[in-house]
């Protein structure tokens, strides 16, 4: 399962449209990329968020309609067991 975080920009410090192209994925290390990312003004003034899913309503699913993290894959395994 995945905990996906993002930064929601604040109205007062909205990023430039060019801001996203600053990031160079391949060459630098994770630490360097994090430093680079968090040095941006819109990130520093932004609001960190994470994403949840609400599972679909399904008969026989123990976690039917539960709030969960995406990428869980829990249903399939259980259904075969119960």
């Amino acid at each position: 399962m995945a905990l996906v975080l993002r930064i929601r920009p604040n109205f007062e410090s909205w990023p430039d449209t060019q801001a996203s192209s600053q990031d160079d994925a391949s060459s630098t290390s994770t630490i360097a990329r994090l430093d680079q990312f968090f040095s941006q003004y819109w990130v520093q003034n932004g609001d960190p968020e994470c994403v949840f899913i609400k599972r679909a309503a399904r008969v026989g699913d123990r976690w039917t309609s539960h709030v969960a993290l995406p990428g869980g894959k829990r249903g399939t395994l259980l259904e075969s067991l119960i």
Partner: protein
Amino acid sequence: MNLTDEKTDKEDENDKAVAIREVSEEIGLDLTSPHALFVGNLPERIVSTSFGQVPIMVLCPFVWLWVGPDVPPFKLQPTEVASTHWVPLRVLLSPSARAYEYVDVSDRFAHRGSTVLKAVIRSILGKMRFSAIRLTPSESLYCSSTAEFFSPPEENAQATTTTSLVSRFYSWYLGDHAGASGNTRPLLLWGLTLGMLADFLDQLPPHNAVQLWSYPTFTSLDVRFIINILTIPLKRRNQARLRKSGMKNETVIDSETEAVSGDNPWFIGGLSKGMEASQKGKNATSSYAVGILLEDYYNMARRGVWISAGLRIMTTIGFVLYIIKTHWKRGGH
């Protein structure tokens, strides 16, 4: 942010690949994108059930940070995902967002006991109460193609006429809120997912996520009272252990939530046997916070349930005897 990095081998890459694939299938988000920065993983959790002596699955939470101002629109898989919700971390951290989820746990062991036993246990326990967080999303997306999202009124009308008043009252009183669908219900994060997030959130200031968490208990006041009394020494001990391990290394978050972390409502199958099973499936290294707090808690809770059941039966017998006695006396005069 300190995330433990326990697994570094191939297996880890496999689990990560599964998570990437599942996320892509469920919500259509591509985590292989250059904007998805992989930052680490949370400790894996072993989920066990009461009837499976073996742990049924391992959950491996991986953490990504989207580096860029815009996340591409999600594509929700209708059979798996009803909606997605972006929630600010400060909402998750706020004491005011704390709530409870009430779950009818007697359902969970329907296949174990008879209906009578089930009803008796249900009347004793009431609902089970779990610590929860009420989510306030900044952005939500609903899978609008499903009947769950919006169904035509004709279908609804039919549904309401077929449920009698009695059964509606019954489901209102005992209904499993956690399983209820519909958009009007508040979004509650609880159980397994909360257990996993609690340790993550506890890394963030004001470091109170675990403090805000409370022990699962039952709505019946007598059961709750007895469990509270029984678990005082245990809670104190676990709290001390948590503090101690926290001083040693604040970044330690470790496995096994689940079996214990509350989402295992069918641990209650433990009224007969299940709890031993879930104890067995326990990970040896349970040094993460909620795991420490819950250590042995369910054992005690089960004892509390039995004690209050015994008390209720004795009270009932006593009352019946008293009635018979007074009647007999009156008859004697």
